């Protein structure tokens, strides 16, 4: 796995040449929010320079300034030693700066070639530009392992390949300095490894690369130097070889981080959720759940580990009140001993909430929040029918006060309930959702990817809250693709693969390696999988209090 060390670290940066990028005292405010405060940064030529920081630390703003998307309020930029006012992207491009945005700026129904030449055409007619670009792309693809079919339409490409198109766009414009904003957020591990090989190749050709990320593993793996940002300020710049993930993490949040979650042993109580033989076929006719059996008691966390796309999302959505995920369903789900409806009335989110089921959905922006609505409005979605908010007319003053108190308890920053949800960073958006769903002490909490795209400080906070909620007696079903998270939080771990539960483990008695094998679908031989021995529906079941007269005499 380890990359061949190309050169000693000391030899790479050319001491005589001016730094590729020099920022002096860059400041930028958006209204009341100071996104960047007096930032100094020096990036040496021919290096991979990492910039880390929590979500909302100001990394992306700083890079957008460098690419001419925003004008700084104050400060000076030097590129290759020359002072430069970057008024627009065109200036940045001419200065040899290229940017790969987190959300790709590609025209989805254009071909790779058309996207590459857009804005960098040779003349008024397309044909010669396309011909030259095709030849040049072939060369670039060969030199940097950036193979992609020039004639392919973007929509047909994988995310990894779309990212290559973005890199090619920058290189085609003769970029010497390449900025990548959270490039691995959308990539599979294999795609990320390939990207790192590409980046090392580019560096070895003398290009300068700025890598923005909040993943410390990537920083340690690929960068030569790393700068840490915290709350709009540049905290430190260190050589990667001379630092450690723990030190970087501490610099990022400004205090020691609990990398392990401290938690007392669980004291499971009454059964809350029982799932028997749940099968689900989706609209495309794919069987997403193939007979799921799970039990969850009050006061415990059941973690579901697995590579995403193995049925976890469907399970969570069905339980959370999105019955439309299923075209065909069978099996039974009981809540506190009573069967709950899986289709039709009562199977929707309102019905679930009435049963005491709260849901932190996997995609907070699409399902957890309405991004254009204020934080205080978002604070009661799903509970907006509660009488405490008024009958026919909403008591906005009460809702505002409630939201502000909730946000304070969950340390949401900025603490301003009148901002739209989209103005908060990812971690703070997640805290808004968590606050709404957890503050009511539900009997059952469904949590999907609680810390996806969330910074370390917020991760720690959300984890602690989940443990507190568990200790207060809530049953928690946790779905996460982060194995570390599942192992740290869960009292029991169930591994899902291809719509089945491959096995259950206690976190203290298993290893990531063993779980990894189960996640890859390697059959569990030590213990029989739940579904293998006893067919669903044939297990001994508790008496059904919903139908006490079943089998009895008609009245």
């Amino acid at each position, binding site marked *: 796995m380890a990359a061949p060390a190309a050169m000693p670290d000391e030899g790479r940066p050319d001491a005589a040449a001016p730094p590729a990028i020099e920022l002096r005292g860059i400041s930028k405010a*958006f209204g009341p929010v100071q996104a960047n405060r007096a930032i100094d940064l020096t990036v040496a030529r021919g290096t991979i320079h990492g910039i880390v920081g929590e979500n909302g630390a100001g990394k992306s*703003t700083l890079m957008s300034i460098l*690419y*001419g*998307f925003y004008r700084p309020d104050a400060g000076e930029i030097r590129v290759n030693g020359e002072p430069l006012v970057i008024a*627009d*992207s*065109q*200036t*940045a*491009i001419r200065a040899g700066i290229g*940017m790969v*945005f987190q959300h790709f*700026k*590609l*025209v*989805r*129904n*254009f071909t790779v070639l*058309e*996207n590459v*030449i*857009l*804005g*960098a*055409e040779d*003349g*008024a*007619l*397309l*044909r010669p*530009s396309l011909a030259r670009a095709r030849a040049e792309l072939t060369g670039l693809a060969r030199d940097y392992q950036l193979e992609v079919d020039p004639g392919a339409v973007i929509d047909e490409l994988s995310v990894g390949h779309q990212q290559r198109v973005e890199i090619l*766009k920058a290189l085609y414009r003769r970029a010497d300095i390449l900025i990548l904003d959270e490039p691995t957020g959308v990539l599979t591990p294999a795609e990320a490894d390939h990207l790192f090989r590409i980046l090392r190749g580019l560096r070895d050709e003398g290009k300068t690369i700025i890598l923005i990320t909040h993943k410390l593993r990537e920083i340690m793996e690929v960068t030569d130097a790393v700068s840490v940002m915290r709350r709009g300020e540049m905290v430190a710049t260190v050589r990667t070889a001379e630092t450690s993930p723990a030190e970087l993490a501490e610099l990022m949040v400004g205090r020691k981080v609990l990398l392990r979650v401290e938690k007392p042993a669980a004291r499971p109580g009454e059964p809350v959720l029982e799932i028997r033989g749940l099968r689900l076929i989706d609209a495309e006719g794919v069987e997403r759940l193939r007979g799921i059996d799970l039990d969850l008691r009050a006061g415990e966390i059941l973690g579901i580990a697995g590579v995403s796309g193995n049925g976890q999302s469907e399970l969570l959505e069905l339980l959370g009140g999105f019955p439309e995920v299923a075209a065909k369903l069978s099996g039974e789900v009981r809540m506190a001993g009573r069967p709950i409806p899986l289709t039709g009335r009562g199977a929707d989110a309102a019905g679930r909430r009435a049963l005491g089921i709260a849901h932190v959905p996997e995609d907070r922006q699409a399902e957890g929040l309405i991004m254009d609505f204020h934080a205080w409005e978002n604070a009661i979605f799903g509970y907006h029918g509660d009488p405490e908010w008024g009958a026919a007319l909403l008591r906005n003053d009460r809702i505002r006060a409630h939201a502000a108190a909730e946000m304070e308890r969950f340390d949401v920053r900025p603490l301003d309930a009148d901002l739209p949800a989209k*103005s908060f960073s990812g971690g703070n958006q997640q805290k808004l959702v968590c606050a709404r769903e957890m503050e009511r002490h539900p009997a059952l909490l469904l949590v999907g990817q609680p810390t996806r795209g969330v910074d370390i400080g917020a991760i720690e906070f959300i984890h602690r809250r989940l443990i507190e909620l568990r200790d207060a007696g809530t049953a928690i079903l946790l779905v996460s693709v982060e194995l570390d998270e599942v192992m740290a939080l869960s009292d029991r771990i169930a591994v899902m693969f291809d719509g089945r539960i491959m096995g259950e483990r206690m976190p203290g008695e298993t290893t990531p390696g063993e779980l990894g094998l189960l996640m890859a679908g390697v059959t569990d031989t030590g213990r029989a999988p739940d579904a293998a021995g006893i067919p669903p529906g044939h297990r001994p079941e508790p008496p059904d209090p919903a139908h006490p007269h079943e089998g009895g005499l008609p009245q």
Partner: protein
Amino acid sequence: MDYATILQILDSAVRLMTPLLLACLAGLYSERAGVFDIGLEGKMLMAAFAAASVAAVTGSVWLGLIAGIAGSLILAAVHGLASITFRGNQLISGVAINFLASGLTVLLGQKIFGLGGRTPSLAGDARFGPVTLPLAETLRGVPVLGPFYAEVISGHTPLVYVALIAVPLTWWLLFRTRFGLRLRAVGENPASVDTAGVSVTRLRYAAVAIAGLLCGIAGAYLATGLSAGFVKEMTAGRGFIALAALIFAKWRPWPALGATFLFGLFEAIANRYPNIEIGPVTIPSMFMNALPYILTVIILAGFVGRAIPPRAGGEPYVKER
């Protein structure tokens, strides 16, 4: 129905198609650049009035044409200002333009000419006359094709040929030039254009201006080619029919020609046969006259395949944080 009648209907269809085609191409430029334009109707109406007025006063149809284009461009500038610079709602801006044109033309017409909102009838050089294409009379003797060439292809006003030439020209501009590539990109993902260092605003203004130009020609043709003067509300919903044709054509130039010809043909048939008798049943003229509009509703309701509009259509471009 003999061959001569068919030719007459086709000839009429080409003439009736022309304003629709020009307006449809106008909408194509605008919407391909991400600016919805339901103000085609208003711009055409304004252009028709301006063209007829100036032609009536000066006696020159060419000055009329220039006035028509200018009138349409002024409204296009309003639309651009509202929807591009001030990032307003494009539909509301379009509706406002339609109302403005509808009221202003009648008001000004009454004030200037005192004829109840019409302009004086145009004659002679104040109207576009037919252009006889080379060899039209010589070839008339050739069986089938000769009369077709002489009747349907030849003998239209210059603006008909402008509209027909605009189709391949638009195709070429859109798919073979740098301008076209950027125009299509700005309607699909303006951020891609912006990050490439090209001005989204300038491109969208260019598209809206081209739309204004084409609507201007369409309006001038209505008042000085198809008719002999301006009449209140003379566009009669053609701007909306052009929008329906644009959706039908899925925002592509050649299919736009086909779609607008179809609408022209319906109108021509309705004009020729007010009442169609099929055995004992008589289809009333009202139905035939309503046919283009019924077809519009059917197309807009999405019965004709799935038409995917430009992705960024209708959305003002704001740089994201």
